[in-house]
Each structure stands twice: as structure tokens, then as C-alpha cells.
């Protein structure tokens, strides 16, 4: 469904991603692990068209998208829930969600999807007219995921959805990801919490200083010694 080939992305002279390749198959959850500065966020931002690669190719559903502007990538069915949530704090919950559907014009479909998000996160329904900035971190994350879903994506990219959340809230987010997968949404997940991410991943990649150093199924990586030492905190 998504194929990234030899991707190189640079900020000025500094190369943040140095020839990364990865594949996401339909209906899979794929994780991208790595320490800070490994290039995970940069990879996602490049896929969604917010950054331009120096070289390499990005293919989505048989179409090359590495030169497509960001707003058209969304129309093609690829949604990005950015790092740090980036909700619009002064807009209401409903306005935030509708902005997720900005690229769509099918009013009836948007209404259906709005109800779907409200069914998934009832707190959003209760507070649909409140400014989003008054929400807790976990609620904002739900809003960010809901907002990304409103573009009715076939591939959803989530950047650090559990960042700064309580363990309970994090479980809620992880079970949401599972629920989305069951609905048929493909997910590319960037996550600091390696253990939780690997447990629900069909496939995972480990990114170190801009390059992929390890890849395999979630179970394989959970058992890998290097992963255990570096990301799971085991000896």
C-alpha cells in the first residue's frame, strides 16, 4: 500500500533521513521505533508531503506521491496526526474535527464519520462546543486521532500518540489503534513506548540516526536482544 524507497531528507546540509526504505501492507499496523533524532518524525512528514525529499521515492497505492503537495496527499487517502497533537486550541472540538474533513466535500459522509468518531470517543461528543485548548493531554490526543480519521483515510500515520499520557490513557489509545485496524484502516505508528507498539504491530522497523538498522514482525523484534537492551530496558 505504501512503499518508501531509499528516502533521503535533509534540513540544509544536515541529513536527517539517510536512505530509508520501508513497506506498509494493507490492513497492517506498522511501527517505526527509534530514539530522539533518529528521523522518525521527518520520515512521516516527508510521506505526508510537508517536507520534500532530496532523493528517493514514495509510492502510495501505486501512485508516486513524493512531489505531491500536502493538501493533495490528504485527498488521496493518507492522513497524518502530527507530533505534539497540533490541535487548534482556540477552536471548538467540532471545528477541529471538521478541519480534518477539510479536503472532503461530501456533507453526508462527513456527518457519518463525525458520528463514528463521537461513538469511538464519547468525551468529544459531550464537549463538542468547547474550545479544544481546555482539554487534558489524553483528550487532545483523542481529538487529534479523531480529526485525522475525518479525512476517511486508508492509511493513518500517528506520530507519538502516547506522548505525555498517563498509563491508563495510553491503554485507551492503544486499544483505539486496534479498533481502527479492525475497521480496515492501515496504520503507520511512530512510538516511543516500544513494548506497547511492538505488541500490536504486524511489522516494525528500527531507525537509528537516519537509517533502518532492524526490521521484522512485532513478535520478532520483541524477542530481539538488541531491541530488548536499547528500547525495552531489559538486560
Amino acid at each position, binding site marked *: 500500500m505504501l512503499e518508501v524507497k531509499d528516502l533521503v531528507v535533509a534540513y540544509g546540509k544536515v541529513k536527517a533521513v539517510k536512505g530509508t526504505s520501508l513497506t506498509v501492507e494493507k490492513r497492517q499496523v506498522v511501527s517505526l521505533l527509534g530514539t530522539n533524532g533518529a528521523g522518525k518524525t521527518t520520515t512521516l512528514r516527508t510521506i505526508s508531503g510537508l517536507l520534500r525529499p532530496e532523493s528517493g521515492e514514495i509510492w502510495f497505492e501505486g501512485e508516486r506521491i513524493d512531489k505531491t503537495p500536502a*493538501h493533495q496527499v490528504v485527498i488521496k487517502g493518507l492522513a497524518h496526526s502530527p507530533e505534539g497533537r497540533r490541535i487548534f486550541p482556540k477552536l471548538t472540538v467540532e471545528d477541529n474535527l471538521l478541519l480534518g474533513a477539510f479536503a472532503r466535500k461530501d456533507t453526508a459522509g462527513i456527518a457519518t464519520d463525525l458520528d463514528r468518531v463521537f461513538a469511538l470517543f464519547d468525551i468529544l461528543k459531550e464537549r463538542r462546543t468547547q474550545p479544544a485548548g481546555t482539554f487534558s493531554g489524553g483528550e487532545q490526543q483523542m481529538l487529534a486521532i479523531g480529526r485525522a480519521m475525518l479525512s476517511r483515510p486508508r492509511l493513518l500515520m500517528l506520530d507519538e500518540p502516547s506522548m505525555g499520557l498517563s498509563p491508563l490513557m495510553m491503554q485507551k489509545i492503544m486499544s483505539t489503534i486496534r479498533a481502527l485496524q479492525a475497521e480496515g484502516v492501515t496504520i503507520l505508528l511512530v512510538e516511543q513506548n516500544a513494548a506497547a507498539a511492538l505488541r500490536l504491530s504486524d511489522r516494525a522497523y528500527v531507525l537509528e540516526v537516519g537509517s533502518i538498522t532492524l526490521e521484522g514482525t512485532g513478535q520478532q523484534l520483541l524477542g530481539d536482544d538488541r531491541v530488548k537492551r536499547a528500547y525495552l530496558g531489559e538486560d
Partner: protein
Amino acid sequence: MKIPTLVTPELQKQYGRLGRLVALAGALLFALSPYLPWAYPRTALDNMTYLGAPSTVQFLGLSLGVLELFALVGSHMAAGVARVRGTTHLLHRVAWNRAARAGALGMIAFIGLIIVVVALETGGLANLEYGAWIALVAAGIATAGSRFLAPGRESTLDRAPANPVLEILTIAGLLGGSLFLLAFALDQDDGGTFVVLLAHIAIMVTIALRSGVGAWLSLAGQRHRNVLVFSAFAVAFLFPFTQNGSDANMSIATQVLIFATTAVGLNIVVGLAGLLDLGYIAFLGAGAFTAATLSESTFATIGWKPPFIVVMIIAGLISATLGLLIGTPTLRVSGDYLAIVTLAFGEIFRITMNNLDGSDGPDLVHGSSGIPAIPNLNLFGFDFGEPHVIAGITLGRFANYFFLMLLIIAVIIVVFTRLNHSRIGRGWVAIREDERAAEAMGVNVFGLKLLAFAGGAFLAGFAGAVKAHVDVSVTPEQYIFLESAFLLAAIVLGGMGTVLGVIIGATLLKLVPEKLRFMSEYRMLIFGLLMVVMMRFRPEGMVANTRRQLEFHSDDQELAAEVDEDLPYEFVEERA
């Protein structure tokens, strides 16, 4: 900034009743003082020399005193009604004490201003008669007394059950009253009287806001938006009929309307899309010059004379094209660059027009002398230069243009509100708040910015075409940077992203200099001070856009939401 509290809550609890009595006495004395002479010379303001016959200005003072009495009596009555849990008595919904405290301060400000103005106009405090001093003392007593009233809870009038009839009647009544106020204000040739009148309006608005009536009114306005808009247009439409064919005030009114129309157009760019355009006046100028060169003026340089409707559209299109030319390269980069480029564009436009004089460039607009003698419009046989008599009332040349501008501003307001509540409007807000996040949502950031920029330019060109005919001649010096700055000031002062606020702001900025010509040297100084004061105390402008207000006072909102979070919504009202 914190003013030390002299009167502590304990003192207020102890002496509240006494304070109310003292304030009542002060207010009563203040309400009676207009029947005394306030000044010796007849020339001071509007002849306040009679015993027993207040002048108009004195009547304004009387109204403040009566209002204060009303607030104090209300405070007394509200204190007499016990609070029952679960219900709210209407008397408890009004913040009487807050209104009384603000009103007493307003009385001091009002009489203080009159004393200062009279002293300045007539050359000394000796020209004031005992009545003015009594009024000042009375206001002081009322203020001292009212300080002992605890401000109490905020008004909950806005949560009172809706009463459509009362609301509609109030809106219509207020706007009807404002028609007379407007006609009266424009008739004041004496600068001092005009200032006092403005101060009186400001004091009244403050009292309304403090008492909660203001919040109720704004809610009523929202509930009956159509009534509000219709009444406002009815007032504007009826205004020329109050002028009896005199062109003096109508020419000011028409200029105000042109200025307001341009400001609303600029507000689409600045207030909705958040793009700082410092050269907007150039787009107005481009429209005016286009209309001038295509007009029937003997100095027009282009032989083709299309009908005015076509001219307007061409003027709009030329302005929009200029907007695209400027916008395409600059809108991709961050906002600061746009401000600089538009600032430069404004200057380039003016200098280019100066150079199109036949010696430095083609003789298209005759350089700095511009295109004079632009004839009056003649649309569908209606000659804008001729006075027309309707129902026995003569409507002069400016009244004709006033009606045309009214039509144009209506169109622009419709465009503005439709855009604001559309998908495009939501995209603009998203861009304003977080451009990168908006992009990730699939918002075509560049396209939407360009739409706002070129669309705003189109509307300015549209208005400029009419302006050329109203002004009779078009010269480059009418379209200088200062005008752009004033347009922006009108938006910031009135309230970014609102229609009503910007119209009020534009009216004030255009009307006040006309009426206060004696202070014209200090105009810039006063506007500068006004801006600083606004930014400090009310950065969202006189009329706040709800989204904007959140941007400026998010702390309070977050606080409020935190407090309210524990209670389900139904209980919030009861507790408040």
C-alpha cells in the same frame, strides 16, 4: 497594574448600606445640578448659562445621574429579595452594584471632562459657574459612596429566559435612537460638544457592560441577527432623510461609508485570513485610477467608455490581478515578509502613478495632478449629480452616492459573513492558528491565502471605482501609506474579524477628525495613544470576535473551564 484597595471587603460588608445612601444623595444632587448654570459665557459648549433650563449637554449629565439613581435603587431592591436556591430572581440577574460603581466614576469623568473643555475653550476655570462645581462634588460623593458597595456577582442576565418581543423591540428602539444621536452628533460644529457627546456614549456603554445589560444586548443581537442587520440598514438608509438636503454632513457620511467599505474588505484579508496587508490602499487606488481613465472626464486618457457596471468589474479585476502579482511570490513565505512587501507595494503604486505623467513614463494618469473633472455617475437614467426630491425631502448629490455605497457595503458584508461561516473561513482560522497543522489537515494553505488576498483586492478595486466619482478628481496623493495605516487602525480598534466592530472603528476614525479640526495637528499623537491604550486594556477591539477573544484571553477561559469542569452544565447557572 494594581490599584491598592482602600475599601476592603470587610468595610464594604459593614458600611454597604450607608455607602448606598451616600451614593444616592450624590446621584440625586448630580441629577439636579443641570438645572443650575454651569458656565458664564454662552459660547462655552452649548450655552449652559440658564437657571432651570438645562442645555443638551446638561441633559446628557442629567441622564447619567438618573441612570445612577436607577442602579442604586435596583441594588437596594435586589438586596431586599432573598436568594432561593434553584431559581434566580430577575433582580438578581443584573449586576446593580457594578453598574452603580461604574456609573459614579462615569459621572466624575463626564463633569471633569466638561470642566476641562470649558476651561480650554474659554481660557480659564473662572468661566465655570457654581453648578458645575456642585455637579463635581456630587459626583465625588456618589463615587465615594459607591466604593462601599461590594461589586457582587457577575450579571447572569444573558442566561435569563429568552423574551423575543422585548429583545426585538429593544434592538429596534436602540437603533432608532442611534439615528437621532447620529444626526445630532453630526450637527455639532463645536469640537468640545462633540467630545463630550462621545464621552457620554462611552460611559453609557461601560455602564451597560458592567451591569450585564450589554451582554444581554449582544446575546439578543445574536438571537435576532436578521432584525439587527435589517434595523441597522434601515437606520443607515433613513439617515439622508434627516439632513434636509444639506450636503455638508452627507459628504462626511459618504466618505465614512467608503472608508468603512474598504475597511471591511481589508478585514477579510487581515481579520479572517490573518494576512497583514500594509498597502491595501493601493488596491483602492488602482480601482479609482482605472475608473478615472475609463470615465467621461475630458482628462481621461483612454478613449473607450464602457458603462459603469463594466468599469467597476474591470477596476476590481485589475486590483485583483495586482493582488495576484504581489501575493504569488510572497504568500509562500512567512507573514512578516508579506507585511514588508505590501508596504513597499503601496509606495511603488503611488510613485508609479506619479511617474505616469508623460515625461517619466507614458501619460496615462497625468502624474501628480491626476485626473480631474470626473463627471457624476448616471446609472439607468439616474443622475447622481442632481438632487432628487422624495416625499418632500431633498436628497443631494452626496446622498445619491451614499445610497450606492450602502448597496456596495451590503454586498461586501454578505461576502464577508458567508466566507466567515464557510469551509473556507474555517480553513483561514486554521491557517491563522497553526499553518503547518492546517497543511497536514489537507488545507491548501497557499491557495486559500491567495484567495483572501486577491479577493480583498478585488473588493477594494470595486469600491475605488465609486470613490473616483465621489471625489471628482483622482490623484496619487489620496492613496498614501497613512491611509493604509488608518484602515488597519480601524480594524484593530473596532475588532478584528468582525463586521460591526470594523464599521464602528471606521466611523470613529473618519468622523472624529472631521469634527475635531482644531486638534488636527495632534491627530497622529492622539491615535497613537488610543492604540496603545486599546492594546493594553482591550486587545480584541471594541467588538470582540469570539474566536479572537479566546486568542487574547485564553488564560481566563481555561480558568473558567477548569472551574466549570466539575459541574454539569445545568448546575453552573445555579451556582453562579
